[in-house]
């Protein structure tokens, strides 16, 4: 099983210049760069990581095909492949509905748009063996992604959820598990981890929520996020840590990775803020 690491455009470039080569040296297989309205755009981050590392695969994980034109997604990776060869990966998703709406973008017909985006990127002919994955959490997106893309990245941290998500695949394909992660104790980053997990929970799919009877909890988390009432999130700590984060001691994280390996998961991506703690990176790399 491959282990990828996610870092985002909230880090300064000078920090990225330190962390990215370290992630490569430690033997992780991928660096995934996320997108958020509050971060630096992923293209400059991916380009500089490629410049500052030598062989690790760098991916957009995930990039919104509503925020970004398919043209720009394709051209950005064509530009990169032309310079560095095939050492990239593209992971697409519709993106966070609330951020999209705040920007005046209505994410209409996400499945159809995904299909169009995938075929447009495929037409390129200049992307070498760059895989295109779909970041997914709902059953329709998982089914479509597994049918049309090179794989799916499931936005779940808990094995029960991942098991359910695997049942939604329309065919066996490359599967990644992509969740925010934190090695504890880490008081400094606990808040960031809690937020990352809360956003995943808040954006989770309705069918998934019904399946695991999470509707009320999710509604309450959404209200907390909308109010910006950060202290109220602490009341949800147990749920978020247990169900929406890959969190724990080195031993516990390794145990979780073993469970995923046993489920035939192909890659686990330890999401931010995990990589922002160099000791955590180091510990997991050694344990692997």
């Amino acid at each position, binding site marked *: 099983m491959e282990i990828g690491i996610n870092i985002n455009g909230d880090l300064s*470039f000078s920090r990225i210049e330190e962390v990215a080569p370290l992630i490569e040296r430690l033997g992780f297989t991928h660096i995934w760069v996320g997108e958020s309205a509050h971060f630096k755009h992923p293209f*400059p*981050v991916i*380009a*500089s990581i490629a410049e500052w590392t030598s062989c690790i695969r760098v991916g957009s994980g995930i990039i919104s095909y509503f925020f970004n034109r398919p043209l*720009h997604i394709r051209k950005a990776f*064509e530009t990169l492949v032309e*310079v560095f060869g095939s050492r990239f990966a593209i992971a697409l998703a519709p993106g966070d509905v609330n951020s999209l709406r705040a920007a005046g973008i209505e994410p209409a017909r996400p499945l159809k748009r995904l299909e169009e985006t995938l075929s447009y990127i495929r037409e390129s002919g200049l992307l070498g063996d760059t895989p295109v994955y779909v970041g997914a959490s709902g059953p329709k997106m998982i089914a479509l992604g597994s049918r049309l893309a090179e794989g799916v990245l499931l936005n779940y941290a808990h094995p029960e959820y991942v098991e359910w998500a695997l049942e939604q695949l329309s065919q066996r394909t490359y599967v990644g598990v992509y969740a925010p992660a934190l090695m504890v104790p880490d008081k400094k980053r606990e808040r960031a981890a809690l937020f990352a997990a809360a956003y995943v929970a808040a954006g989770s799919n309705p069918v998934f929520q019904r399946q695991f009877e999470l509707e009320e909890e999710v509604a309450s988390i959404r209200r907390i996020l909308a109010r910006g009432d950060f202290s109220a999130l602490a009341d949800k700590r147990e749920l978020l840590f247990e169900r929406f984060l890959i969190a724990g001691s080195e031993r516990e994280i390794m145990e979780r990775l073993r469970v995923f390996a046993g489920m035939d998961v192909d890659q686990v991506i330890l999401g931010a803020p995990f990589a922002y703690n160099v000791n955590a990176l180091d510990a997991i790399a050694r344990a692997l």
Partner: protein
Amino acid sequence: MSLLLFITVITLSLGITTSMTVEESKTLVGAAEDAGYTRVWLGEDIFHREVFTYLSLLAAGGSSIGLGVGVTSPYVRYKEVLAASAKAVSELSQGRFILGLGAGGLPEVERLTGSRPRKPVSVMEEAIKDLRERTGLSIYVGARGPRMLELAGRVADGVILSGPKRYLDRALEIVDEASEGRRVRKVLWNAFYLGENEALLSKVTEVMLQSMPPFAKDFMDRRDPERDLCVAGPPERVAREIRGFEKKGFDEVVIGPPYGETPESAIAEMGEIIGDRHKH
């Protein structure tokens, strides 16, 4: 005192476009850096390489020269994406970044967005205000028509011009009048060629004419369009022309495609010519 503020010593910048490979550009950027150029302007050809990825590769590769997009269109990206990209490149280049906006080749924009761009001047005004607020960056405008020139003079930090010489005079007048004494930096980006190559210049001129708006075309010197639209010729002639642009009030002249028979040496030679002139 106020006169002093407007005495400029023209500087050189390098012009490249996303239709060139990054590798090619890196060589030219290296030559421009060695020759003391002020900055590199990267023009976005909408259907070629992605402009912010491209600039990031130049900046992360250790180049310390100033960078600018010259230009990208506010029609082709959501403003959130444009702002997040521009901010990233600015940080990566340690603040040596200028965001150049232009309505863009309207047919290309139409091909991309599926509809004819409407109200380019008010869209541009809104984009400048919005992006300045989001990014705090210097914003230059690639302007051609009288209303866009007026807007640039009124609100932009700089203006990027191209076109026939008599048109440039008129364009500068419009910008100056609209700026009401505010400092607006003026960049000239016409075709450039150090040396003689009539066949190539005719071809370049033809391409420039295709995308030139009627307002600018009306000012053309039809007897010698090549000389009117290209900064071209042997070193003495090119130096004289650049001196002329300086007198007109330009701050910066772009040494851009097709450069010269050997682009790298043309770029270096121009550095020597203009540098020497400054010394004397």
